[in-house]
């Protein structure tokens, strides 16, 4: 399963980073209920968050949903890697 880059944990609830401060729910998800069901099955959280579109990086603990500018959205900070390869069936033979 694939984690969503917009599913942000704030204390004990999940917020949709694409539509803050709305909660991450089936009805709110901008990508539709089918994608939402797939995306929430596996989730990873990041210690750092990007406030977009101003491209400001903050610690997750510093996030203040009330102070966001209109039109702002929140994205998890991610790491990019090289050479990660999932094993496929033919490899296991």
């Amino acid at each position, binding site marked *: 399963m694939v984690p*969503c880059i917009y599913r942000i944990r704030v204390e004990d609830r999940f917020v949709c980073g694409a539509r803050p401060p709305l909660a991450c729910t089936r009805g709110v998800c901008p990508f539709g209920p089918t994608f939402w069901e797939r995306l929430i099955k596996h989730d990873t959280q990041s210690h750092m968050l990007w406030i977009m579109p101003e491209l400001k990086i903050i610690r997750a603990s510093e996030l203040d949903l009330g102070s966001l500018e209109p039109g702002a959205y929140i*994205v998890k900070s991610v790491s*990019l890697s*090289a050479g990660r390869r*999932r094993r*496929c069936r033919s490899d296991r033979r």
Partner: protein
Amino acid sequence: MSLRQALDAVRLLDRAGGGEGCRVAIIDTGAAEDASLRGHVNLTNKSITDTEGHGEYVHRIIHRVLPEAEIYLVKVPNPVPDHLFITAIHEAMKWRPHAVNISMGSEMATDGGDPVSIYTDRLASVSVVVCAAGNGGPRPLSVGSPACSRETLAVGAVNMKLRPWSSSSRGPTLDGRFKPDIVAPTGYYLDDLGVRLVGTSFSTPLATSAAALAASILPRPMIVRRLLQLTAQPIPVTLLNLSFIRGQTVSRTSLHRLLRALAFSPDPRNIVGMGLLNAGDTIAEASRLASGG
């Protein structure tokens, strides 16, 4: 399959051995010791030489296909945090390369609104940015940034028989766009080293080489990216395995399975994009457009 056969499959063999005047930038884990490098920026505290067994091969492939090309490298750690990767993109942009090879990525689903995708789109306005789709397949939504950004060319992989490679990442993006854009062979051997290179990371340099050749003829990155897509050779994809339906009577269980399979049946464009890279036609078409034909 050797690199030579892979180049032949994508019709790049007759174009290989040149590349004079082409500028190619690589953002990766390092360089090969014995291949030439015109310039580099090191964003790690280690030597520029690759120790991860990744960037070295990407560099070697591009050097073998385009031995006369000017190759530039931005070395980044593995894994690399996104803010450092954005710095790498800035550094690569300074050389104004014809093509940029990015064989790194995240596997987090995105719609192109994340910072790495946004900066990669800016880079795509000056260079053809060729990104590995990733090795997160066969699950859908596994193309992460920067491959899922709007203006980059995401390259998936086909195996040695030119059939879709099962672990090649699949689209769509979160906002429903088709990815990858094209596919290129993987699983070929670097002849003298005896190393088999598997993964979309090593199908990407083939597309980057073709993109650099085309962009050196026609310096319009957006048009070259589109040419690479439009000239690709279609690949047949078997979408549904219906072997579980046997005989004339369809049982209730089989029907249920069929309906489930149909619901998640992927579009072929989310597996192989527009098809197999066809470097010969791309370069010919770029030449025709450049000459005003």
